[in-house]
């Protein structure tokens, strides 16, 4: 940063290598940044990933389509419920399955709840990287309320295996809609407290405002998607612009902020949570009756071919390419995971940041290592 000591008159400093990670409190997993540092200033950064690589794409070629569905929740384990969405969309394209309307609505509801939970994790872990433990507990308590809902509907809290090829696993239990409304209220109260504590906090503003601003052109150049793209001023959200499922039936705003710095990426998540609450409320109000799962053969053999589907997941565009050879197992599964592409900007933006700013930057990018390494 400009204010920091960048030139010591006549004094020479020695650069050194700092391996930030893979075991580090604020890399949110086994991410390693190989930093070349000049004192506290990052001279250059390099992403080192793959510590969590499980070869999921290869696993997919060995098991059936239905068996792979629970695996899809395991990449981005912070937003597990909405991860199979793109996979299911691709399968439905491949098999020309028509998903019942009620199932679509339930997908939207559960998906948006999961988006809220995921963004809450991002907010909490971001301020935790600035050592604010108290606000972190507020948002994580808020997330608990959402997770309780997910558990009631699917049985799992974190790796929610609810979406299946052709609909959803089961209908919502009785009284769940009312519980959801109450939980959203409770969640919003905690979020308000969190915002009062953090958003106007001068120290927080000092740590995030103007840190690693990503311009719209840069965001497009580096293929950033999701909230980080919208924080850079690009008005694009797949839910509105390329609507899948039944998103075109709800009215919601797509928040866009022009700045693109760490604070804007933080602020955008807060705004998106409030929009997601709106979507969930609308969907609950207009929830149609009917089946929740289309008939799909137990031994499902799609016609040979290829399908590509993408959704706006919590961290950006989650895309699946599924190639079928007519057998019960996929011939090739390729996934485009948002975190993997979003971290491409780190080496470009890191030089010149202090170590603390670097932490602020990677925290605001909101990546999940399971999503990067797959």
């Amino acid at each position, binding site marked *: 940063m400009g204010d920091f000591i960048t030139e010591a008159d006549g004094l020479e400093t020695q650069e050194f290598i700092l391996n930030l990670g893979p075991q580090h409190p604020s890399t949110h997993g086994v991410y390693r940044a190989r930093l070349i540092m000049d004192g506290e200033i990052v001279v250059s950064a390099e992403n080192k990933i793959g510590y969590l690589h499980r070869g999921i794409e290869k696993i997919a070629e060995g098991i059936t389509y*239905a068996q792979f*569905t629970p695996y899809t929740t395991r990449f981005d384990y912070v937003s597990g419920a909405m991860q199979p969405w793109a996979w299911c969309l691709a399968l439905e394209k491949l098999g020309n399955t028509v998903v019942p309307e009620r199932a679509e609505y339930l997908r939207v509801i559960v998906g948006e709840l999961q988006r809220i939970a995921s963004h809450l994790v991002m907010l909490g872990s971001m301020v935790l990287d600035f050592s604010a433990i*108290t606000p972190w507990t507020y948002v994580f308590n808020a997330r608990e309320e959402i997770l309780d809902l997910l558990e*009631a509907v699917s049985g799992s809290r974190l790796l929610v295996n609810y979406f299946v090829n052709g609909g959803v696993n089961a209908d919502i239990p009785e009284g769940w809609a009312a519980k959801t409304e109450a939980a959203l209220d409770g969640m919003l109260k905690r979020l308000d*407290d969190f915002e*009062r504590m953090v958003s106007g906090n*001068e120290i927080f503003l000092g740590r995030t405002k103007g840190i690693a601003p990503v311009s719209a052109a840069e965001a497009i150049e580096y293929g950033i998607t999701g909230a980080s793209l919208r924080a850079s001023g690009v008005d694009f959200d797949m839910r509105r612009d390329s609507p899948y499922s039944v998103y075109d039936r709800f009215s919601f705003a797509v928040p866009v902020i022009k700045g693109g710095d760490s604070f804007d990426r933080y602020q955008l998540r807060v705004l998106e949570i409030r929009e997601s609450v709106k979507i969930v409320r609308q969907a609950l109000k207009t929830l149609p009756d009917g089946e929740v799962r289309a008939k799909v053969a137990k031994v499902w053999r799609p016609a040979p071919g290829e399908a590509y589907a993408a959704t706006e997941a919590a961290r950006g565009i989650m895309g699946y390419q599924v190639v079928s050879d007519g057998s019960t197992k996929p011939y090739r599964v390729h996934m485009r995971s948002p975190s993997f592409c979003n971290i491409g900007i780190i080496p470009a933006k890191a030089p010149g940041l202090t170590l603390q700013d670097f932490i602020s930057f990677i925290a605001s990018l909101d990546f999940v290592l399971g999503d990067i390494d797959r």
Partner: protein
Amino acid sequence: MYGLGLLKGLGVSMKRFWMPKITEKYPEVQPKLPERSKGSFQYNKDSCTSCELCSMACPNGVIKVEWHKDESGKKRLDRYRMNLGHCLFCGLCVEACPTTPKSIDFKRDFALGCWRKEDIYRVWTKEWPAAESAPDPAAPASPSAPAQGGN
């Protein structure tokens, strides 16, 4: 600005200081789990027909069903093994089970931690009248091994 945000934050934390706490007194007060909560498994060996649909549905090869044929050619269950260490708790086996009541089903026992590695196995055996000799358990009783995920 000029510290107002900081004071607001102090106000919030002081407010929360006096508000009721949410900590659960866990071992004394057990959590109320919803009906569908996926914990451990319960197995009903009387309704099980050894059809192995659960074993085939499993993405990870968790379930192994061992059976033999009696004189009339009927499948007789010997042993039902689950390696919970590989289990994804996805529920595909429960979904696949064709019997009523479900032979394999979730129960809401979530305390799955154990001290010994052996304890992550869930094994249910069924004894048959002595006239029928149970086959050697080391020999592959089931016709095929379930697919291992990815390799």
